[in-house]
């Protein structure tokens, strides 16, 4: 199996098959990041695809200082945060609603959801109810499986900040999961 650097060299030579191999290699981690941040929405796959298109367009900017997976994940996080901002702007225009009210309604929706016992969906829903800062560290560390150090590098934050944020995020997430479960 060719290494990331070998694939990159082939992509720069215009070999599209190398690019498809690279997309296939990192599809899950990129989609995992985006879906973790945005939920299973129609935009999530569009954003995940956009991650690879952006990478392709700016191929020359990748100098190999960080691992390719880390680099792609950073793009995924940034595009997801942009999408969340866009949603917030849209939401503010369309439905002026307090955050707390929104959460109560979402929790009520969950109670009526016949798939409430589906742990995967439960976690996905719970993730959408914690703050973006908490969500990002949880997604990177606990879903994508990056170390605290790598998570800090992706988010460009000090390692100590990520460590303490991760601790508080887990407590918050557990609280939300418990609220959704009963």
């Amino acid at each position, binding site marked *: 199996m060719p290494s990331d650097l070998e694939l990159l060299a082939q992509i720069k030579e*215009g070999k*599209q098959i190398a*690019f*498809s191999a690279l*997309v*296939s290699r990192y*599809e*899950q*981690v990129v*989609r*995992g990041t985006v*879906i*973790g941040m945005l939920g299973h929405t129609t935009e999530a*796959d569009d954003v*995940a*695809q956009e991650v*690879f*298109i952006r990478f*392709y*367009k700016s191929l020359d900017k990748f100098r190999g200082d960080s691992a390719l997976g880390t680099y792609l994940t950073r793009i995924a996080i940034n595009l997801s945060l942009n999408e969340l901002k866009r949603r917030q702007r849209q939401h503010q225009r369309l439905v002026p609603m307090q955050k707390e009210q929104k959460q109560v309604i979402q929790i009520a929706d969950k109670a009526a959801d016949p798939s409430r016992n589906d*742990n*995967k969906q439960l*976690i*996905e829903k719970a993730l959408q109810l914690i703050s973006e800062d908490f969500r990002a560290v*949880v997604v990177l*560390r*606990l*879903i*994508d*499986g990056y170390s*605290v150090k790598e998570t800090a590098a992706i988010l460009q934050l000090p390692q100590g900040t990520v*460590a*303490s944020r*991760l*601790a*508080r995020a*887990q*407590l918050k*997430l*557990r609280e939300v*999961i*418990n609220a959704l479960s009963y």
Partner: protein
Amino acid sequence: MNIEELLAYSLDNDLTATEQVRLEQALVESDGLRQLQDELFAMRSLMQGQLPAKNKSFVQDVLRQLPLEATIAQLSAGTRVLRLFPSVAAACVFVIGISYIGLHLGDADWISDQLVGTAYLSAEEAYTYIDTYE
């Protein structure tokens, strides 16, 4: 950092000796904290299986958006402009054409003799030409 945060923190980080003793002691004394520990372990275990399954059409969906980008990226600068801004390219061709015509008209090259083809004839050839066609 309160004891619950310390517990969550310990799952990803090394604790100092003092913190370690404080946490272990609290775990021994508190049922609630032990329950929290169990719940955090269970939650983390669930999260690990949260990566989505591969989507069969994903790679193709990405590649489908690529050809135009890929082709354009591989073209020379001039051709790239042509592809990206066809109206600008057409305008450039038009301006160059007009300038070319203008230059030649300025030199008065397009007089009737040149169009007929007699402009560069010697006097003798011209007489022959006139005799032939009169």
